[in-house]
């Protein structure tokens, strides 16, 4: 398959992406936080490029990070790869302590396996299923709220791995609220979560990434319109 080559030349980093994938955005943020020059290739998932299929033959999905022609797939794997390869530039995404690391990995899995599916279930489903998804998501969010009880960011004093992993929630909650009218959490019930969302979106690397909040609203509205709602 792909053999790792010793390349002392220029570091070439490509990211196969879509504008809407919550798993892609976290990689873009990581690359920006680490000041890694990169090229983004936006894919049309209905018409996947031969390159994407070559680099991710198993899952055929985005994101795929290609570093000097070598692909790495699965967003959580990519984040750890970036952190280990560009070690201190400017600071690590994951903590050094094994227990802290294990905890961040646990909550990262919680984000992707539990919170994200139930949140999007709440947005997309109808009737009883919508109500159930809402209750489940609220229960999950209460745990995240607790995680933030003594911390500025999910990763601690500064933005890190776990913030990038939960970043989809910070980034999409307000735009989706605007477009669908569905408000899942407010400042009164989730003060820590709302404060974290604001702080996260103000981090320069996050703020400067495309699409921004306004663009997201426009794009979500477009999707709604095209479905004839």
């Amino acid at each position, binding site marked *: 398959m792909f053999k*790792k080559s010793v390349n002392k030349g220029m570091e070439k980093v490509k990211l196969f992406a879509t504008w809407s994938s919550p798993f892609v955005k976290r990689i873009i943020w990581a690359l920006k936080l680490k000041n890694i020059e990169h090229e983004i290739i936006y894919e049309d998932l209905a018409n996947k490029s031969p390159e994407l299929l070559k680099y991710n033959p*198993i899952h055929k999905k985005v994101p795929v990070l290609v*570093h000097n022609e*070598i692909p*790495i*797939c*699965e967003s*959580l*794997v*990519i984040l*750890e*790869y970036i952190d*280990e*390869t560009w070690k201190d530039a400017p600071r690590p995404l994951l903590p050094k302590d*094994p*227990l802290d*690391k*294990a905890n961040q*990995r*646990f909550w990262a*899995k*919680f984000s992707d396996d539990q919170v994200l599916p139930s949140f999007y279930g709440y947005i997309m489903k109808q009737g009883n299923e919508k109500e159930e998804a809402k209750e489940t998501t609220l229960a999950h969010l209460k*745990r995240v709220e607790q995680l933030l009880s003594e911390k500025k960011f999910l990763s601690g004093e500064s933005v890190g791995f776990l913030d990038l992993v939960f970043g989809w929630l910070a980034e999409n909650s307000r735009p989706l609220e605007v477009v669908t009218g569905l408000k899942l959490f407010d400042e009164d019930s989730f003060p820590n979560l709302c404060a974290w969302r604001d702080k996260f979106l103000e981090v320069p690397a996050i703020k400067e990434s495309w699409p921004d909040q306004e663009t997201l609203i426009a794009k979500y509205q477009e999707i709604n319109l095209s479905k004839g709602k």
Partner: protein
Amino acid sequence: MVGSEVILLDFWPSMFGMRVRIALAEKGIEYDYKEQDLPDKSTLLLEMNPVHKKIPVLIHKGKPINESCIIVQYIDETWKDKSPLMPSDPYTRAQARFWADYVDKKVYDALTKSGTLKGEEQEKAKKEFIEILKVLEGQIGEKPYFMGESFGYADIALVTFYCWFYTFETLGNYSIEKECPKLIAWAKRCMQRESVSKTLPDSKKIYEFFMEMRSKLGL
């Protein structure tokens, strides 16, 4: 909990628990094994894994670590002076993580469906499961283990399913060895390691456990 620095909350037939037992054995770590009665979860289990209420849970110096793959990485990073379970360079580590993740996403559901579904659905499930195994077989290729010469994280993620193969082969009336001989050869190679052979229960014992559990559930 008096005196025990490392405690494992586990359930003997769990392939996820077995991953942790193999990792602990590879590192030569002494620990206090606490068998959990799963229908009747202990206070300790509920306290140490309030989110998922599942085994395995590793308790180290009073602090819990949950999720089998996360626990294995924790063990490797904490007891780092002996028998590394992860490769040393970032790219190969990413590969090991990718394949362990692939096993987690695909193997459990596909394996169980191949034995528990009926008729045409079962045939479809068997085909799907064999395809998944062939992908894994392809990744191992001519190497002794997933990542090369050394037994490690990705091998641990998959090998614990080996003792469950007999159960689903019997229920599904098919032979995994016939379809994926190289994969079985890899599994047998892993079984030559004491950490694996002493951890994996006998396949027939697993089968008896599974059949008893199903009859209790009225299936």
